[in-house]
């Protein structure tokens, strides 16, 4: 029995006994459906839109001239095409690194200041990046994912992301594929999407960012990857790092064709 199966079996023993696996799945589906009406993510979207339009930073300029890949100020549909190569930066960027880029270049923030609070915590420590991400992604709702792999650096990012997906490491010898490479896997009662199928990849990627009930916060895809690394007992995934962007490129491109449906709400 491989290491992961052993771990899953052990976790399974700790579960409370329930009538049948199918009825549990049905009830949890009902829970998720009931959450859809009235998503607190909308509060982040509203704040993000205000931040996008507000004159801020040392240069007192808004983000409305920020080019997210479809031209300066074009927000609609931009997230569905990210990550992508940006000539002015000469690198592939995901939404969050692009937002930081615009905050630095348009608004005059230092890179450190722009990135200083990527994951918010409560009313006293709200993250502007999470709000801006919520707003920009909401403007891609209903749009089909179409991440292109045209520029050599886009292709390279995808290939590195793929390697990272299968890379086993850390104290538990986990890879992303360990948890996300087979059907019908779960940790306790949390089912794990199989990211190696088109359906699984689409469903997973198109529902981030999401209001995470367990966090009481809206969390982005950078957060999702950061938290996966943490749970795998990997070294910390640096915000906006090449590794984060490469993995995002791999997963986003694999979700192509899926209709973007965020920001969503999850447990």
């Amino acid at each position, binding site marked *: 029995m491989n290491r992961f199966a052993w771990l899953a079996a052990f976790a399974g023993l700790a579960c*409370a006994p329930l009538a049948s696996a199918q009825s549990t799945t049905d009830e949890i589906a009902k*829970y998720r459906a*009931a959450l859809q009406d009235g998503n607190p993510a909308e509060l982040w979207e509203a704040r993000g839109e205000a931040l996008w339009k507000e004159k801020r930073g040392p240069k007192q300029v808004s983000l409305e001239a920020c080019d997210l890949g479809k031209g300066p100020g074009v927000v609609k549909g931009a997230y569905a095409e990210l990550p992508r190569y940006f000539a002015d930066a000469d690198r592939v960027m995901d939404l969050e690194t692009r937002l930081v880029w615009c905050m630095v270049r348009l608004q005059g923030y230092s890179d450190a200041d722009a990135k200083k609070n990527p994951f918010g915590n409560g009313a006293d420590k709200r993250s502007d990046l999470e709000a801006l991400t919520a707003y920009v992604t909401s403007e891609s709702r209903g749009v089909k994912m179409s991440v292109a792999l045209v520029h050599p650096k886009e292709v390279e990012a995808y290939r590195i992301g793929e390697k990272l997906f299968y890379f086993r490491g850390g104290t538990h010898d986990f890879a992303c594929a360990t948890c996300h490479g087979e059907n019908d896997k779960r940790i306790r009662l949390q089912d794990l999407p199989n990211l190696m199928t088109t359906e699984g990849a689409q469903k997973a990627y198109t529902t981030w960012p999401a209001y995470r*009930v*367990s966090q009481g916060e809206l969390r982005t895809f950078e957060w999702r990857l950061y938290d996966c690394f943490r749970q795998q007992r990997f070294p910390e995934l640096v915000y906006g790092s090449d590794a984060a962007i490469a993995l995002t490129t791999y997963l986003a491109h694999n979700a192509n064709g899926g209709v973007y449906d965020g920001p969503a709400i999850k447990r």
Partner: protein
Amino acid sequence: MRSGGGLTLAALLGAAGWLEPDRAFAQAAWNKAAFDTHDLRDTTKALGGGDAVQSKDIEFFQTPEIAENGAVVPVGVTSKLPKTEAIAILVEKNPNMLAAVFDIPAGTEPTITTRIKMAQTSNVYALVKADGRFYVAAKEIKVTLGGCGG
């Protein structure tokens, strides 16, 4: 802002329509005693009633039987009892039982949807005040991860 057991004069006058809603509200009472109880009887008493009678005319809707996380549990309650004046939601195994009480004026449907926190798997009670008397229905909601803190 005042908080204390029972109604303040302002709230009473407000309820009678003698004060503009806003002014009455600014001094609205918060029933501290009711938010400090640990069983159904005490809660009903603190809300001004005696024993609550089981009623099939109180229904839960869009209320799942399993919550993936107790921090956010959707609950919908509707009352078919005539002259429903208030709907309260109680969670038996929470640190205190009463989550909320909604006053339903004439013209407002006796149906409320909201989201509560549950510390653990527990009975959830919908307590309804109708025509001066109290009625109750219960539903067990399983919680896979508690939601009150820590």
